């Protein structure tokens, strides 16, 4: 190995003497470094956005929901809530009813989601509904239920006039707008009695395992209910995020493939240019196996230096852009103030391994071809 390493170091270190090998190696090295850097920065950007989405999800969405396995009424909801509260201290537990009503203001009427929650003490609408109706805090709206009651004038929809205590941020994934009411008020609108449809739970310190914990807490009763954790409740969104990550990795990873092909060309060019040297080395006793090692070392040397340099620059750029908030985003459109970058050590390691594997493959092919030649061939063609 000593002679091969010595030669590779001399080949790569020949830049001062402006040797061709060192020059083409530098080009390959820069290409691979740029590829790795692009991939690291892109993945950091993706992780930055995705982690802000996940953070938003954890901060504002329900972490687990218990619903009846069949039908819409959750029987014994009050007792169930107290059992869960006892078993899962520190978890926020809310009884909920949901439905769709027509919400009207003097200017307009639109269908909207109506949510009744046991922890709500006042009426709020989200920004989407407030925007559509043109209402704000202190205005009154009428909520008209699809449920009807019989009157001397015939069946009429149940309706309530409510005063808006506040306008809040919409729930993650909400598109149609919603109005949130105290539970009893929503029950009267949607059911006409004390019906609960679901129990929603939040555990800010351990949101991702709450669904599992609820199933354990429910014990035998879990079979009668449908328990969904954070991952199940937001499966489409989380799947989309995972898919996006894979697709971006593959798409941007093609840069690495191009860089590896460039490395292959350059190693092949070195093999052709150094044909005489290789024949001489073989004449001096370098074995075919050692010739293969020489080219693998050359490719891996370029790959290692290029990848590590690219990764270091990529991490530095990502950290700098994130900490200085150098790329601001318009407020009100995005949930974050600037383009977020989050470097994940695991992702950087995967990129480095991928780059090194590709560099090895790129040098393996010319290495095999060169090692097969009889030394005299290289001397004869001089």
């Amino acid at each position, binding site marked *: 190995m*000593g*002679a091969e390493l*010595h*030669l590779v170091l*001399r*080949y790569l*270190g*020949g830049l001062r*003497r402006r*040797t061709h*090998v060192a020059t083409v190696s530098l080009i390959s090295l820069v290409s691979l470094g740029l590829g790795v850097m692009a991939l690291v920065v892109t993945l950091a950007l993706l992780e930055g956005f995705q982690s802000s989405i996940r953070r938003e999800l954890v901060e504002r969405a329900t972490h687990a929901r218990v619903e009846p396995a069949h039908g819409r009424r959750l029987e014994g909801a009050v007792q169930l809530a107290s059992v869960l509260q006892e078993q899962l201290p520190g978890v926020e537990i809310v009884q909920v009813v949901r439905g769709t009503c027509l919400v009207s203001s003097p200017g307009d009427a639109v269908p909207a989601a109506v949510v009744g929650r046991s922890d709500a003490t006042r009426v709020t609408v989200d920004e989407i509904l407030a925007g559509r109706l043109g209402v704000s805090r202190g205005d009154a709206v009428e909520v008209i239920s699809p449920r009807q009651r019989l009157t001397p004038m015939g069946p009429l929809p149940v309706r309530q006039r409510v005063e808006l205590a506040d306008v809040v941020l919409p729930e993650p994934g909400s598109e149609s707008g919603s109005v949130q009411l105290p539970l009893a008020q929503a029950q009267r609108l949607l059911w006409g009695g004390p019906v609960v449809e679901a129990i929603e739970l939040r555990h800010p310190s351990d949101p991702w395992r709450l669904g599992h914990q609820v199933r354990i807490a429910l014990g035998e009763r879990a079979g009668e209910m449908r328990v969904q954790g954070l991952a199940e409740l937001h499966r489409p969104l989380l799947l989309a995020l995972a898919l996006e990550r894979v697709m971006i990795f593959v798409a941007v990873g093609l840069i690495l493939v191009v860089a590896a092909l460039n490395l292959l060309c350059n190693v092949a060019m070195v093999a052709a240019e150094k044909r*005489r*040297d290789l*024949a*001489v*080395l*073989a*004449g*001096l*006793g*370098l*074995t*075919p*196996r*050692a010739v293969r090692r020489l080219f693998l070392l050359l490719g891996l040397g370029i790959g290692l230096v290029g990848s590590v340099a690219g990764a270091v620059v990529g991490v530095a750029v990502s950290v700098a852009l994130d900490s200085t908030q150098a790329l601001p985003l318009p407020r009100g459109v995005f949930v974050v103030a600037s383009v977020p970058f989050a470097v994940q050590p695991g992702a950087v390691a995967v990129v480095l391994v991928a780059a090194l594997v590709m560099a090895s493959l790129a040098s393996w092919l010319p290495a095999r071809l060169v*090692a097969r030649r*009889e*030394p*005299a061939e290289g*001397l*004869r063609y*001089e």
Partner: protein
Amino acid sequence: MNERAPLVRVEGLTKGYGSGATRVDVLSELEMEVDEGALVAVVGPSGVGKSTLLHVVGLLDRPEAGSLMLAGREMGRLDGDERARLRNQLIGFVFQHHYLLDELDAVDNVALPLRIAGRAASQARSRGRELLEAVGLEARAHHFPDQLSGGEQQRVAVARALAMKPRLLLADEPTGNLDRGNADQVFQLVRELHLLEGLTSIIVTHNEEMAHRCDRVFRLAPAGQSSGYVS
């Protein structure tokens, strides 16, 4: 009468290039023996196969037919790695062009066979300096090939060929690219080292005068004609 077994024995050696209508037979049923310690010149017209013979004897190429025995050992069945190891341990090469590696200075070029053999860098370089001194180039140890004259380059190549203390020295027109003065110097150096190191040497040359300063002259004839020692 020489009782020792020859270091090199070639029997029925056949080698050609190409195939079909473009086939050229270079060596045909060649027989040759070189005794241990001999300095043999191989002469013959251009294209007769002198370099090919040297490449086959030096394990740089494989014959199509016939056998080659080096130091009493049949070479035909050795794989590439074994042949490479034997080239490293047993044979020293000097080519017509110096064929030094541009990226290495003179001492590293000379030390290269030792590095290939797995010797430590310091040991290899120490032997390299010793050999450069032997060829009168100790002051040029850290010069790169492009900083040396043609004669100096060839002397470094001779030093490199002797780095592993080989038993067999093969030189393919070592003075072919040099002016008369440098050619004489290099040939004299090869002769001196041949004696000093107790080598067996085969030198391919076009220079009849140099050939006759060797112990024996082997005249190689075109395929189909008789080749053999003429002195």
